[in-house]
């Protein structure tokens, strides 16, 4: 199922599952991720699953690229379907001008009004492909074809915590203040990542379904868990 394994630097394997970004490809990545994690292969220090890639970091003191590549190639995984996750997580979002930092850029580049963009955004259930970039950030898809846009050319040095953004076919939530290049259209007052809960620190996990719903500024500050 892995199409190609190459090296990323001297201490990571870059496993390529192709270029498709869909749930089927993503499931394969997750299967490998879970299988390799369970095997506790000596030398592996970290795993990063994404839409269609899996990066395997290793300790160069214990194993090297050629040795580990062989081990990963020998793993056989059946093509059984993974059960779809039925959990739906609802995320309140405020799109007041104070939070919708890139709504004008979106509006002019997409040739849609703010109202039209938000209608399309809220009217859809999303699938969580992966979490990361910053702790707990969910990569959700797919958004309506009419509201897809590239990242900002120069990423922001600081995107505020709670910001909800879109780029290409995806949506996400900035779980912490962070640099980033997504088009910001609102903010959620809900805490997504809880570092005190070491067993289940993330509210949204790969495979979960997510539905955003709009709230006003007053409701936003009433809930605000991101202070």
């Amino acid at each position: 199922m892995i199409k190609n394994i190459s090296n990323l630097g001297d201490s990571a394997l870059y496993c390529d599952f192709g270029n498709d970004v869909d749930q089927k490809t993503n499931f394969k990545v997750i299967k490998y991720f879970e299988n390799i994690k369970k095997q506790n292969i000596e030398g592996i220090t970290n795993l990063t699953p994404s839409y269609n890639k899996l990066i395997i970091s290793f300790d160069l003191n214990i194993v090297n690229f050629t040795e580990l590549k062989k081990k990963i190639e020998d793993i056989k995984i059946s093509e059984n379907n993974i059960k779809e996750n039925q959990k739906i997580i609802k995320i309140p979002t405020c799109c007041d001008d104070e939070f919708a930092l890139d709504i004008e850029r979106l509006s002019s580049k997409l040739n849609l009004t703010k109202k039209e963009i938000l209608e399309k955004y809220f009217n859809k259930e999303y699938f969580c492909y992966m979490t990361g970039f910053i702790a707990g950030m969910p990569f959700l898809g797919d958004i309506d074809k009419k509201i897809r846009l590239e990242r900002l050319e120069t990423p922001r040095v600081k995107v505020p915590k709670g910001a909800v953004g879109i780029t290409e076919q995806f949506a996400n939530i900035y779980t912490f203040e962070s640099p980033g290049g997504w088009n910001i259209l609102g903010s959620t007052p809900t805490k997504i990542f809880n570092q005190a809960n070491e067993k289940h620190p993330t509210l949204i996990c790969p495979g979960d379904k997510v539905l955003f719903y709009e709230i006003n500024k007053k409701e936003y500050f009433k809930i605000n868990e991101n202070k």
Partner: protein
Amino acid sequence: MKINKITVLREGVNSTFQDLGRGNLYHIGLPFSGAMDKRNYLIANKLVGNKHNEAVIEFAYQGPLIKIEDGNINFAISGDVKFNLKKNGKLITGDCYKNYNLSKNDEIDIISTNNSVYGYFAVSGGFELKKNFGSFSTHVRSNVGANDGHKISKNENFFIKDFENKNINKNLKYTNSKIEYIRILKGTNFDFFLEKSIKELTSKEFLVSKLSDRMGMRLQGPKIKNLKETNIRSEGIIKGVIQVPADGNPIIMLSDHGTIGGYPKIAVVISADYDRLIQIPSGKKIKFKLIELKEAEKLYKLYQMETENLLNQI
């Protein structure tokens, strides 16, 4: 039991508790973190007789001003660092890679790093801290790690575990080595870029921008031109990856990097050169040299051996 307590009178710049970092959490968005300069981190702990994974204070450019509030401490500072001690009211110029014993009301003023970025402050016994996800390392952006995931701040107090051997007197003769080139391997999107740009990456100088921190190092130099796509599908990153966003200014991912990124990867800094890369201060210039994987593996073994030799001398 005696209490050993310190107060932070000045926090310094980006002062955090660090150890060897935490693995196996990339998939939820937590990077390894840990001491930026592993070699100097290990040396600092060894000098004060600690196990290799005890938390130390890492600082950038300027360190904290610390007062011994109660009890006594034995400490060492590693890196290329200028610092003073106030012992029994007397001012002493401090030397790196050497042990010092201080008592109540004494002070340590970590003034600055010399032509480098990071320094390390280790105490015998280690600090009384709570681990988070198996490590003390502070990841400020996700508030994970010791000290509730925050930088060390002014007027904070920290306790130091009681240490048995009060007469540790170790030192190491060592000068931090500089290298002419930072060596890199081809990245997974190497062929996205204009040949001329690749040549420039490996022949021209790049300036380390002020917007550099534990997360990334932003570079300025000849603009790197992308022929194919300026965005890729978001995928995993590792430290040392050199990404090039649409504006053509490369960014090197460092220990606190975002775990996933959507900019093409032109190259990756080899593991052997990482400790030296992160010590290059903003305003200085970097030159890169492209090498092959086998050579990178060999250079890493050499670098590790050198580190082991240094640790064995303590």
